[in-house]
């Protein structure tokens, strides 16, 4: 295969005494849509949070688009911890959609989407507004631009969250259980938006989810995380219909059992 856009090379992450990622090796190809599934506490969110630079690492190297994320190359070729300047440069590649939406409650929907493009990317207000309007159209909220997040349903909030992340034009979009905080009847509208994005050829997507049917539908590859390692990975067909590992089978049996007929 060609150079991966994301590469975890023996990445270690600890919280105090707890080793959450233990020499994780993980690669994602450009444009690939990867779903991450696994039991609670297995380190799924941690992987996304490390990529979004919300969480540092304790060992190994994470590479994004060929450049180390948490390190910088010193003049003598060795790796030293990344500066904030380096992190800011690297972050332009990535966007994140949060489980709890994390919209800015004091800004209108429109400003939630335009603020970073104006302040961070230096777009003119007009350009940012135009971009936001296109994105609101895409997520089906063109008529909600002037509302505050507090006036929206959960499903609408998450669609704004997606539009806000897209407004920065990331190459890689990270979704951390984007529908877990939603009432069941609102899950579908968010999945529909994500489904549209999955058709975008160039966008690399990493999706942590409990929506197995949806993961199966949109992913090129599914990774089953267990205790900070990838226990098993493969195409959705391989993993969902004929898993090799007992752990995978047990997990799938448990989640499919607890949520029969889940949306999407």
């Amino acid at each position: 295969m060609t150079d991966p856009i994301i590469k975890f090379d023996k990445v270690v992450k600890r919280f105090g005494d707890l080793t959450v990622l233990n020499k994780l090796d993980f690669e994602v190809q450009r444009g690939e849509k990867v779903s991450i599934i696994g039991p609670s506490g297995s380190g799924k969110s941690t992987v996304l949070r490390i990529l979004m630079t919300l969480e540092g690492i304790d060992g190994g190297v994470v590479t994004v688009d060929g450049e180390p994320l948490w390190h910088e190359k010193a003049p003598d070729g060795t790796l030293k911890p990344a500066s904030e300047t380096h992190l800011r440069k690297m972050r332009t590649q990535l966007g994140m959609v949060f489980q709890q939406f994390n919209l800015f409650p004091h800004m209108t929907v429109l400003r939630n989407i335009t603020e970073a493009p104006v302040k961070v990317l230096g777009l003119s207000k007009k350009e940012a507004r135009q971009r936001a309007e296109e994105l609101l159209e895409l997520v089906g909220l063109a008529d909600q631009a002037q509302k505050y997040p507090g006036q929206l349903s959960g499903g609408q909030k998450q669609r704004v969250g997606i539009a806000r992340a897209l407004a920065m034009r990331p190459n890689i979009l990270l979704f951390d259980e984007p529908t877990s905080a939603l009432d069941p009847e609102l899950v579908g509208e968010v999945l529909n938006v994500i489904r549209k994005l999955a058709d975008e050829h160039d966008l690399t997507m990493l999706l942590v989810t409990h929506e197995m049917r949806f993961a199966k539908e949109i992913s090129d590859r599914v990774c089953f995380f267990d205790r900070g390692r990838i226990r098993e990975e493969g195409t959705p067909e391989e993993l969902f219909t004929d898993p090799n590992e007992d752990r995978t089978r047990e997990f799938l049996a448990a989640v499919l059992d607890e949520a029969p007929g889940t949306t999407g």
Partner: protein
Amino acid sequence: MHWTEYFGPLAEGAWVTVQLTVYSTILGAILAFASGIGKLSSNWAIKAVSVAYIEVFRGTSLLVQLFWLYFALPLAGMALGIDLRLPPVMAGVLALGLNIGAYGAEVVRGAIQSVHKDQHEAARALNFTSRQTLWTITIPQAIPEMMPSFGNLAVQNLKDTALVSLISLGDLTFRAEQIRNFTQDSTTIYSMLLVAYFGMALVLTALMRGLEAYVSRWRMAGS
């Protein structure tokens, strides 16, 4: 002197009290923001100055601060060969503002820290600098949080202005004291004084509520 004649001088004094309150509350708010944010700064020098200011002015009495600014500072200045004599109004506004600013600083700091971690993470994911995050994400959300305490501090400040009569500033209390010395009519004059301060406090509280509603508009929207 009939009691209705007290109104003239009392109104004059009340106007001085209003001015003192307004100026010192504004000064206090500026100092509260500067030092409340400063206390959270990663720059140790800014942090040290902020902490020192907050602790000194919370740890000493307003009256002593006032006397120090009005009586001691000029002497200290004289020793250094600089003229540091302050007009009474200036000394009053400074002392009140410095005092209320130190208390307000803790309110500002607390409100900024109460903004949820999720908001910082969203800001980071969108690549805002820490300064942009502070001014566009954190502070606007922290301000409504500060308003109830700021309202209390403003009323506290109004009541504290009575102390400036001790440096011969012609505020409401000073005028009342003058009339009392002249007429010996303590009951009437102090009753009027009470009502006057209470009335001003009511107006101030209403103004602060209005301001609170204004800065919290987004909270009222919908839900």
